[in-house]
């Protein structure tokens, strides 16, 4: 956000917060490391508020849980914004000095009275008011979100709706308050930082900028085209149109992880050439022409990872990888050599130092300093820079060079609408002990895998549709159907069902989901599927 792809704040500030809002995040299960910082804050007296359709374990820790309808985040956020304006909690000086577009924003939220928001979101007006007043009045607030915000066809608008609230109240860019999109893996942040995104070079440098491209081309002896690449869903579209014929998949399992799974598998099968590089022989690897066995990041290789709070940390090799598995860097460099390019030394520290010479925000992070300081938060511009606990303090400078714009956003309900044929809203998510498609977490037996995959139903819905607790049921969406055991779960309200995606070999949940995708982020609407239940 505001031109940098990372959360603005740090765990240290999270622990010191007066108010933490988890919006579309079940951090208790999906981000347990972050959540232990949240719990420290709670034990220090911080308020915790959770916005989530489900009364998740995170919501059960909350002082206030708001159970909105799936896909109504923008009405709720806009109503919060309107109430903040109405109640006089706007940081007028900040808005005037550091932002643009306030008037348009105020107009855009004007229709979202508390009553109107209650009608659309299902959340009682007084709870929305309470959230707004808490956000407006607290000194140190961390507003955090994850896939409940971003796995929608209008993901970026959802994020804007939340950022607007921080701009309204000046709760960003200073110690104690900020915006945190939580990262679901130890190095999702690092992947983006290193340029594994279609529009940026390492260090979030714009590829369309001629000067930036020239810098990289000089260093690499390359001539990169001045265009954005494709994000994942874009790639699948390109496959469908026959434009993309060869794919190199590194550490991903799109055959099971993509929405509308049948389509994804068909397209992968239709490729001329598929290379998969992974720790495990995944479902995607089963489709591949070539499989390159990779070493594990933890314990088998040297390098760095970057956490949700932008902290770059070292990982170290403790033992040799098994069999023919090799370090990712070695594989890529060897591939380069065979394709006629010498990429230089495959030593992790040499690669890192090359990055430091090209990415200003990493420039000060030598391996020696990473060791000495226990990791460093970017940006860290030179070897005297201690790193940055929080970012965007420029918004509080005497003169704000580049103001942050309000982004008015409109409600746009989920694409997969409910009707008489598909009356139930299915949403998907994670659980504590499992990870994504289960490539790493589902391959061994564990007492934590209680019950495997199931569809969780409100007991009222189970009775209404004649599905007994524990019985098998067919779940049908507009794209396909799967069978799974049904389990009653009293944390779901009637009309809302829930599935995981951790056991795709048992139940291919993503056969059901819709690949309606946000064109700006490339993320599909995993969170909102219309289903019906049929007897088996």
């Amino acid at each position, binding site marked *: 956000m505001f031109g940098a792809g990372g959360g603005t704040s740090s765990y240290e500030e999270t622990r010191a917060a007066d108010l933490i809002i988890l919006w579309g995040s079940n951090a*208790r299960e999906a981000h347990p490391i972050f959540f232990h910082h949240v719990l420290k804050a709670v034990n220090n007296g911080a308020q915790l508020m959770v916005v989530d359709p489900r*009364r998740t*374990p995170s*919501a*059960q*820790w*909350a*002082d*206030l*849980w*708001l*159970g*909105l309808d799936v896909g109504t985040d923008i009405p709720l956020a806009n109503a919060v914004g309107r109430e903040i304006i109405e109640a006089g909690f706007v940081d007028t000086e900040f808005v005037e000095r550091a932002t643009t577009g306030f008037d348009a924003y105020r107009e855009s939220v004007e229709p979202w009275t508390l009553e109107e928001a209650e009608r659309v979101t*299902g*959340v*009682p007006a007084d*709870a929305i008011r309470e959230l707004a007043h808490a956000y407006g009045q607290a000194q140190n607030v961390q507003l955090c979100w994850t896939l409940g915000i971003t796995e929608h066809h209008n993901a970026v608008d959802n994020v804007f709706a939340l950022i607007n609230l921080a701009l309204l109240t000046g709760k960003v860019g200073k110690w104690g308050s900020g915006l945190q999109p939580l990262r679901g893996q130890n190095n999702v942040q690092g992947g983006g930082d290193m340029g594994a995104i279609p529009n940026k070079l390492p260090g979030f440098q714009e590829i369309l900028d001629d000067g930036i491209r020239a810098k990289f081309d000089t260093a690499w002896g390359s001539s990169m085209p001045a265009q954005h690449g494709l994000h994942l869903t874009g790639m699948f579209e390109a496959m469908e149109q026959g434009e993309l014929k060869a794919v190199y998949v590194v550490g991903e399992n799109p055959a099971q992880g993509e929405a509308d799974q049948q389509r994804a598998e068909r397209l992968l099968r239709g490729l001329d050439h598929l290379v998969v590089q992974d720790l495990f022989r995944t479902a995607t690897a089963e489709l591949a022409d070539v499989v390159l066995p990779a070493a594990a990041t933890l314990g088998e290789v040297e390098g760095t990872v970057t956490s949700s709070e932008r902290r770059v940390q070292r990982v170290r090799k403790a033992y040799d990888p098994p069999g023919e598995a090799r370090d990712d860097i070695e594989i890529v460099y060897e591939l380069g050599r065979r394709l006629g390019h010498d990429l230089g030394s495959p030593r992790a520290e040499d690669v890192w130092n090359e990055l430091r010479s090209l990415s200003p925000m990493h420039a000060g992070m030598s391996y020696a300093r990473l060791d000495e300081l226990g990791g460093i938060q970017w940006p860290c511009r030179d070897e005297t820079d201690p790193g940055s606990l929080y970012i965007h303090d420029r918004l509080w400078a005497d003169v704000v060079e580049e103001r942050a714009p309000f982004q008015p956003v409109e409600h746009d309900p989920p694409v997969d609408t409910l009707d008489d044929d598909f009356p139930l809203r299915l949403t998907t998510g994670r659980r504590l002990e499992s990870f994504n498609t289960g490539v790493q977490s589902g391959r061994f037996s564990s007492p934590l895998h209680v019950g495997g995959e199931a569809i969780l139903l*409100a*007991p*009222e819905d189970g009775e209404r549709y004649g599905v007994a607790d524990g019985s098998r049921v067919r779940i049908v969406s507009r794209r396909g159907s799967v069978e799974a055991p049904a389990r009653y779960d*009293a944390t*779901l*309200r*009637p009309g809302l069902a829930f599935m995981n995606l951790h056991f795709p070999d048992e139940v291919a949940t993503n056969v059901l989901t819709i690949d309606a995708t946000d064109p700006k982020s490339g993320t599909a609407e995993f969170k909102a599927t219309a289903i019906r239940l049929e007897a088996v």
Partner: protein
Amino acid sequence: MDLKLLDAEPTAAEREAIDAVVGAEAANGNRVARRDRHRRQLLLPALRAAQRRVGWVTPGALGYTSRRLDVPPADAYGVATFYALLALEERPPEVLHVCTDLSCRLAGAQVPEGATPSPCLGLCERAPASLRTIAGAEPREEQIPPSSPPLPQSSDLKLLRRIADGLDPTSLEAYGAFRALERARELGPERVIELVKASPLLGRGGAAFPTGVKWEAVAGQPAKPHYLVCNADESEPGTFKDRVLMEQDPFALVEAIAIAAYATGCEQAFIYVRAEYPLAHARLQNAIDAADVGVEIEVRIGAGAYVCGEETALFQSIEGYRGEPRNKPPFPVEVGLYGKPTVVNNVETLLNVPEILLGGDDRDTRLFCVSGNVARPGLYELELGTLLSELLELAGAEPAKAVLLGGAAGSFLRPDQLDLPLSFEGARDAGATLGSGVVIVYGEQADLVDAILRIAEFFRDESCGQCVPCRIGTVRQEEALHRLASGKPQGDEIAVLTDLTQVMRDASICGLGQTAANAVDSAIHNLGVLAQ
């Protein structure tokens, strides 16, 4: 949240009993849920309710309570097992608890087949005594013998005046207007505190801290809210004064609490009463319900734990934790109940306040619980400084070979020490303490070895086990005394006991451990019991 619950389900009756405390479960389908962080404060009341319904805390009741209050079952189990009166194993709905403590031993207490021995039940003036607990749809507890004997003293009374006059303790009309509370409101909080400070009132719970100073400290704390806790967990063996006051003069306590709360800025007050006082519970609740004194007063009932009379352990108990004392400082006036500034006063202390405001009888009197080998056991009120020998004469004491002053945490006096003045200074000069005003007389035939073995057993049993000096020290003390008593000492046991006394005094977290060797030490060194 995140609870790994037991499979056991509560019965409908248990569910109903627990719901009556914690509220019925909200229907599913809500869009809003709130977490009350103080919710676990209902843990002890809920477990108590479940036990009173079926006779013991079943796994189903424990699990259901855990789920409803967001307390992990292991944690709830830890709390339940802390209290002697909560049973986690099946037992009949009716249980007879027979007091085998100091005064009742002197009166020849016997535990019949099927009954449970109990520490002091606070019924020492009618020893031997017991308590019957009866679980069911209409649970109740019976004190045995059932009726309270009349006060043995009829003249020169101040605090006990209304009781001696036979005022109906269940009638607000009989009590009349809250004149002292009205006076307090005329004076304003600051002036009330000034008057209490100017009075000689010192805390009657045992520590003798100036009450006015404590009030002033809480009133001046910027942190809000302030809480008031009336410590009525009277459990010192031989003590029953607060029970008599609560049973016979409950409106006066309600008025005194209202005054203290008004002066110190407390909106909420708790009276923490030990579970063994069913009549006091009923009378207090009746008085609270009948009177409107401008402060919310809640009666909290313990479950059999001597250590909960320690003020910070009492906070832990109210908050729903094991009653393990906290380190001091910080003191309760700064960090008390729920971490907020808290006034903690004993029942007798508070009951002195109305008279101070009304400016009537300005004598500084104290209550004494006299029991043991005396003709007229019971509650006496004497001006401070009266000689112990005068009190013994009033009570018709037998010629004594020893007198235990201050309870199990107090000291034994020799027959030649009985002319000491009953005042804080007088007791201190004799190396003793008035403590909670306990006076137990040991006649010529009394068995002092039996008495100190019981005292050692009592402290070993009541030690909460949190800190090492007390947990280990009370066990070692009892073992050494048993070896001495059976004539099989291993080395210099007296030296061992003297060392233990010092270690427990110096290093225990709370007053329980610090005083657990007092009486034993005085029996050995002052009386010469087991000394050879």
